[in-house]
């Protein structure tokens, strides 16, 4: 990865004002354009072959009218959007809070200026002062270059909302990025890494496009691994009507390492509990890349989880370790497709705990579910099986800032691991730093921006590595699990990546299991302990 320039951050003062600094598309900072077949699959506008590297993006002749009408429609529809366009006083409190600004030094990555890219156009066409005084009033014409600038920078924002925590007005910059992306989407200006998963999810039920038999065979592969490890044969059910609980998790968990170890964790835990639950090959995706294109598409993809819960006649839904899935469930689902009155208010069948926070959505986060099990002493745990690990925890942006899950995963980890260390407090909980690859930016061709944007998070991990010898970064998000291995290899070599339920399953003592000689990854437990002892002696 030595080809990346990530360590050369230029914070020098720009030569010209931002309006007079044209956008420059830099290698490794942006994604490939969307493919026509993926736009066609969901009925998105303007499906055609195009490349984000070309000069001509093949947009309709009346593109300006489409964008301005789209803006007007949204200003009327979303009061938040109108408010966020009007109230910013450009105080700059957000500027140095953004991981992309810290990592790139590019002024247009300051949240205030990223929003200003859109706000300037709003002023020109929708405010009197902007119409009369133009540039003096911070207004500018909408041109093709402005459009390209939007595309470049709205896909250099991960909608993580760290800036919003520091905004005295509470402006949610993620919502500005979301509207910016919606407007671009009206012209077919999407990215391949987002439009592809959206089309897959719409057609086959999950981002990866796993067909039902493939999804099932993936889980059977994991069951085989569990059998080898524990001698226990687990037989989960799929699409079973009448199950008490529907379990939904990101498809990355069943398909890609290291998420697959987390999926093994779910399977082992539910088996030990004797939980009456089912997987679904239709609602086979917890994530929602539709949310990264438009409100309407997010709603369409979210609907299928509830349609499946209704069809199967389950009582409630249990959700796996995912990030933006929970922002959607906790903050959007209720007005999109809720309230889910046909389901029951979730009650843990093991402890009797009523999850009142999920009263409306009927969707419980697995970290809450497992923390509650441990609290009631329902699990037999041997944390020494994680003794080869020194673990720190990354608060995923969406579960922390989008729903306030801070204590539950920590409580779980402290019960299943003996060595747990926190990153510095300005980088955790609601102030957590993004992985740099969220909101559909976890492609390969934009690796440069991923490494730059992930730098503040990696820097905090490095601190724990140097201070405590941390060698494992835990999280509760599938994008984290997909994105962090590259980030750690680049900035903090020697630190691995895990989901919390992989750690749970390592420690979980299952009735009738054979003696464990390895952890879920097949690493020798004995050897790991000996290595630790030898290292400590030295």
């Amino acid at each position, binding site marked *: 990865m030595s080809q990346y320039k990530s360590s050369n951050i230029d914070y020098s003062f720009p030569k010209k004002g931002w309006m007079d600094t044209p956008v420059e598309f830099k290698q490794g900072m942006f994604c490939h354009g969307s493919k026509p077949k993926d736009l066609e699959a969901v009925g998105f506008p303007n499906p055609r072959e195009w490349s984000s590297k070309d000069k001509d993006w093949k947009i309709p002749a009346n593109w300006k009218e489409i964008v301005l009408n789209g803006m007007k429609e949204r200003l009327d529809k979303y009061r938040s959007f109108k408010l966020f366009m009007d109230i910013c006083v450009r105080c700059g409190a957000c500027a140095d809070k953004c991981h992309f600004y810290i990592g790139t030094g590019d002024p247009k990555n300051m949240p205030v200026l990223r929003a200003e890219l859109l706000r300037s156009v709003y002023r020109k066409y929708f405010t009197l002062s902007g119409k009369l005084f133009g540039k003096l009033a911070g207004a500018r014409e909408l041109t093709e270059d402005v459009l390209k600038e939007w595309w470049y920078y709205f896909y250099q924002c991960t909608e993580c909302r760290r800036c919003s925590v520091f905004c005295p007005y509470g402006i949610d910059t993620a919502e500005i990025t979301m509207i910016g992306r919606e407007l671009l989407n009206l012209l077919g200006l999407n990215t391949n890494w987002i439009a592809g998963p959206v089309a897959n999810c719409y057609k086959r039920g999950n981002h990866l*496009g796993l067909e039902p038999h*493939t999804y099932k065979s993936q889980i059977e*592969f994991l069951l085989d691994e569990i059998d080898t490890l524990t001698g226990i044969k687990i037989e989960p059910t799929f699409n079973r009507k009448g199950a008490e609980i529907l379990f939904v998790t990101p*498809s990355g968990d069943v*398909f*890609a390492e290291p998420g697959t170890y987390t999926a093994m964790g779910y399977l082992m835990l539910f088996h030990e509990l004797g939980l009456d639950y089912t997987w679904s090959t239709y609602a086979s995706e917890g994530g929602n890349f539709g949310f990264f294109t438009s409100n309407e598409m997010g709603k369409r993809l979210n609907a299928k989880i509830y349609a499946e819960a209704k069809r199967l006649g389950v009582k409630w839904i249990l959700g796996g370790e995912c990030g933006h899935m929970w922002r959607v469930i906790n903050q959007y689902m209720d007005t999109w497709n809720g309230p889910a009155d046909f389901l029951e208010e979730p009650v843990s069948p093991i402890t009797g705990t009523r999850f009142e926070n999920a009263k409306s959505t009927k969707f419980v986060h697995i970290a809450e579910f497992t923390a509650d099990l441990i609290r009631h002493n329902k699990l037999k745990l041997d944390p020494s099986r994680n003794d080869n690990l020194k673990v720190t925890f990354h608060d995923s942006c969406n579960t922390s800032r989008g729903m306030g899950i801070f204590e539950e995963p920590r409580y779980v980890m402290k019960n299943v691991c003996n060595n747990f260390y926190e990153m510095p407090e300005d980088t955790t909980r609601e102030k957590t730093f993004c992985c740099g690859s969220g909101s559909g930016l976890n492609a390969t*061709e934009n690796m440069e921006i991923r490494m730059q944007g992930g730098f503040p998070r990696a820097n905090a991990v490095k601190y724990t590595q140097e201070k405590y010898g941390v060698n494992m970064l835990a999280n509760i998000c599938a994008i984290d699990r997909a994105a962090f291995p590259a980030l750690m290899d680049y900035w903090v070599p020697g630190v691995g990546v895990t989901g919390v339920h992989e750690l749970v399953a390592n420690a979980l003592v299952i009735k009738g299991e054979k003696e464990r000689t390895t952890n879920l990854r097949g690493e020798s437990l004995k050897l790991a302990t000996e290595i630790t002892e030898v290292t400590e002696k030295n």
Partner: protein
Amino acid sequence: MGSFELGGRTYQTDEDGYLVNIEEWSKEVGEYLAKEEGLEMTESHWEVINFLREYYEEYKIAPMIKILVKAIAKKLGTEKGNTKYLYDLYPEGPAKQACKIAGLPKPTGCV
């Protein structure tokens, strides 16, 4: 988007050089793509490619490496069914390089 000519035919590729239409794949196309990667294909290389294509035929997605390793161990023995062997054949990684030569599309999402 890109393309290449082979035997009088034009083949479309995506920005990363992956074949756009998997049904256009042939052994000659595989050889061409391997050459682009700077690889000399041997019988051992083809064993992996053939397995990938069979897997894709059934499951419509490229397998995760662990499944590939396990399946190859089962079919061709443990001396071939390990990560090192696969990386020796495909230094850029079996998932990336071998899938490209086999004409399979790249998985997208939380991967």
